Every structure is written in structure tokens, then in C-alpha cells.
């Protein structure tokens, strides 16, 4: 057998490592668009951005380990086209790679903001190179506008404040992280940022209307309500787009990501893993695509077993994510978006130490906590079991 894995970040590398661990000793090629050896992305908006960790600290794999694993590494060579029928992958440098089994783990790219093309001083953060470039520009007093208060935007704002930059965080939703974790927890996160002196602007009036520039260099962000925010630097963090453009015409179904069945298979001999994979989660009963670091590993390891015929059951993980906001770590299991109710079952949000449960319809769909991480994990079993909401309280681990 020969396996080609496209994407040399967390999901792709986990797949490659999982294949070897599970006994696969055939040809194994790992293709990466970036010239870098596999590295971990969550620290980019945290420890790398604050300068606490250097690039070596975030490597998932050095050249020695790649050699031990017998990886044919093709770095700095983006994939360009796929012919599923002929089982052949083409790379941007013209290389043609035939395969028997293919794993697509190309991740996502940052969503660009229209109107920022060619404007100097406007940055996005996805790669190690992006993080180091941004780091080099953040100094005490640097006036930074972060556009978008999702996980990435809030973490960048926190890191920049830690470096004593002057930070404006702008977001058209009512609260930071509101879409991801709900209004109550979002308001708590807003408080953390205000306490640290971030200038938080939220709501429809805080949508970005325009930019002012001087000789092609950004000098102010203009909001919908007319406010002008003079700045030295802008970071756009308004979400991401699955990296599937190169798969147009491949015959694969591309919706919000590469559409797979409940076993992460997109076509005979083709699997997807990580941020780019959209699969049918049989327990949740919905199609799911997760941009969680933990899912990248879990799904990569699952796909490795699936390739070897060892997976057994469909892929039905209990999602997990965490976010660092200054010294506060949020941890959560489940699917939290679009909840009908959020109920605090331990501690209090106002005290900054709590566990909150999320309900959608009659089901328990998620749990999130701050300074109660071990308690949070104890609700995981109920999520895995697909517990109803009322039953969750009857079976409360507390």
C-alpha cells in the first residue's frame, strides 16, 4: 500500500504517526504547503506571540523523528490538484504523486476582510511566519486594532496587552466569543479584557466600515458608527475558510469543508481529518466541522486506524476546546453553539470560577468551565452518552 497525507500540521502529522504506531510499514508521504517541519498552531496566538516560547518549542516533529517514522516529507510544496478516479495528486511544483490511499488535512486559511488588499500594516495570523512577523511589530504603546473577537482575536488582544500594546478589540456581535460560548460567558470574557485595559467596541456600530491610509499604510480603522480608531497596526481575525480551493473539479463534495461520511471518508480511498473535514457525527445527528486543536489529533488518529481497517465504529468524539485569556483558561466539552439555555451549576460567573451547562432542545449539548477544569471533565461522560437535559441533573456527577 502507499499512503499520501496532504497537510503537515497537527491532523496530518497525527495521521502519519498513527499509521506507523498501528503497524503500517508501507510508503508514507507527508505533503506540506509551508517550508516548516510540522508545528503546533495554538501557541502562535499565545506563547509565541508574547515571545515566551521560540519556534523550536512548538515543533511536533523534528527531522530525526521524521526519519524514524520513515516519512517522505515534501515541504514547501502546496498540493495543486487531485484526480480521484486516477488516484493521483499533483503538487504546485509539478510533481505527480500516485497513491492508493489519500488523507486530506489541509486545514483552513484566514478569512480576508474586503478592502484590506494591499494595505500595509494589516495582518492575519495563521502561520509561524505570521506570528513571528506580528511579534516583531508589537511594542509597548503600539496602537493595535484587532478586528474580530472570536477565539483568535481575543487571544491576540490578550497577548498584545501583555506586551503593553494599546489595543482596540472591535466586534459587531454584542459580546466577544458570544457566538461560540453564549452571551453570559462572552460578557465574562469582555470583563477580563476591560480589566486589562483593552478598548472593547462591540455591537453593530463596531462593524468595520472603512480604512484610512497614508501612502498605502493603514493609519485608522473607521467603524460603522463613525468612530475613527487611529492605529499603527491592524490584525484581522474574522474566522477562517477551509483550504479546499485546490480541490475544485476533483469530484469530491465540497461544502463547508470536505464532506465525508461518518467514518471520515470522502471517496473510495480518500479521507479527511482536522479543520478541513466536515463529517456526519452519528451521535450528534448533524454534520460537524471542528477547528479545535484536540480534534485534529483525535481525527488524525481515527483516520489512521480507518485506513488500516482498524477503526470499527464511526467517528463520534466529544469535542474539547480551551482558550487562554490572560491567566484565565476556559475549558469546554461538547457543541456549544446555538444553545437554547446556559445554566451555571457550580460557582458563579461573577466570581470567575464556574461550570455552565448548555442545552439545545431537550439535550445536554455542552459544558464549559473556568477554574473548575476537573469538574468540567466529570460532565463529559453524560455528553458522550447523549444525555437528556433533565436526566443530566438527575445523573449529576456532583
Amino acid at each position, binding site marked *: 500500500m502507499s499512503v499520501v497525507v496532504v497537510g503537515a500540521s*497537527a491532523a496530518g502529522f497525527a495521521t502519519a*504517526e*498513527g499509521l506507523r*504506531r498501528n503497524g503500517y510499514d508501507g510508503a508514507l508521504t507527508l505533503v506540506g504547503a509551508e517550508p516548516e517541519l510540522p508545528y*503546533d498552531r*495554538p501557541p502562535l496566538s499565545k*506563547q509565541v506571540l508574547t515571545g515566551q516560547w521560540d519556534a523550536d518549542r512548538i515543533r*511536533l516533529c523534528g527531522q530525526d523523528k521524521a526519519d524514524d517514522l520513515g516519512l517522505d516529507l515534501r515541504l514547501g510544496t502546496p498540493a495543486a490538484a487531485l484526480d480521484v478516479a486516477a488516484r493521483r495528486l499533483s503538487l504546485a511544483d509539478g510533481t505527480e504523486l500516485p497513491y492508493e490511499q489519500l488523507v486530506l488535512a489541509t486545514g483552513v486559511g484566514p478569512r480576508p476582510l474586503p478592502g484590506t488588499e494591499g494595505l500595509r500594516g494589516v495582518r492575519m495570523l495563521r502561520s509561524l511566519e505570521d506570528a513571528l512577523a506580528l511579534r516583531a511589530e508589537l511594542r509597548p504603546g503600539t496602537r493595535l486594532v484587532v478586528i474580530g473577537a472570536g477565539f483568535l482575536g481575543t487571544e491576540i488582544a490578550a497577548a498584545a496587552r501583555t506586551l503593553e500594546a494599546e489595543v482596540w478589540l472591535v466586534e459587531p456581535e454584542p459580546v466577544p466569543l458570544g457566538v461560540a460560548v453564549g452571551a453570559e460567558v462572552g460578557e465574562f470574557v469582555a470583563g477580563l479584557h476591560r480589566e486589562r485595559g483593552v478598548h472593547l467596541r462591540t455591537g453593530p456600530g463596531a462593524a468595520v466600515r472603512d480604512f484610512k491610509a497614508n501612502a498605502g499604510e493603514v493609519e485608522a480603522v473607521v467603524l460603522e458608527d463613525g468612530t475613527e480608531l487611529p492605529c499603527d497596526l491592524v490584525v484581522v481575525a474574522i474566522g477562517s475558510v477551509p483550504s479546499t480551493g485546490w480541490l475544485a473539479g476533483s469530484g469530491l463534495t465540497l461544502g463547508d469543508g470536505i464532506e465525508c461520511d461518518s467514518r471520515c471518508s470522502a471517496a473510495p480511498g480518500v479521507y479527511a481529518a482536522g479543520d478541513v473535514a466536515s463529517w456526519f457525527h452519528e451521535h450528534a445527528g448533524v454534520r460537524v466541522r471542528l477547528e479545535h*486543536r*484536540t480534534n*485534529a*489529533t*483525535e481525527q488524525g*488518529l481515527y483516520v489512521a486506524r480507518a485506513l488500516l481497517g482498524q477503526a470499527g465504529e464511526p467517528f463520534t468524539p466529544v469535542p*474539547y476546546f*480551551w482558550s487562554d485569556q490572560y491567566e484565565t*483558561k476556559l*475549558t469546554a466539552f461538547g457543541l456549544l453553539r446555538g444553545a437554547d439555555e446556559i445554566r451555571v451549576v457550580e460557582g458563579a460567573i461573577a466570581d470567575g*470560577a464556574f461550570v455552565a451547562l448548555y442545552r439545545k432542545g431537550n439535550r445536554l449539548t455542552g459544558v464549559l468551565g473556568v*477554574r*473548575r*477544569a*476537573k*469538574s*468540567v*471533565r466529570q460532565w*463529559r461522560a453524560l455528553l458522550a452518552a447523549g444525555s437528556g437535559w433533565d436526566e443530566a441533573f438527575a445523573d449529576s456527577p456532583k
Partner: protein
Amino acid sequence: MKITIDRDRCCGAGQCVLAAPDVFDQDDEEGLVVVLEESPAPEHHQAVREAASVCPTATIEVTE
């Protein structure tokens, strides 16, 4: 078998505790990994290898 951890990397997912509850725990607040047995008995070895492999941030290193 010897377990070493890089605790700064830990993200508190608790996957290690699910895989090998006799060997790993989490602290209450941040959920960071706590190793209960640095040199676990042979009957735990398979579970520890599993814990290391499912750790999403490669926090756990196992030397045998």
C-alpha cells in the same frame, strides 16, 4: 517505563485520565496533568501508551 511531562504544553483536555485513570489525574482548577505514577507497573503500560498517543498537545513522553 518512565513518564515525563511538559506541563506547560498541557491544555487540560483530560484525555490521559480517561485512557489511564490509575496513572494520570488533573488538578482541579486548570485541569493540568498530574502524574500519579512516574514509573507505572506493567499492567498499566498499554493504557499509558494510549494516553500519550491521544494527548492532543504531545505533553506526555514515555520512555521504555
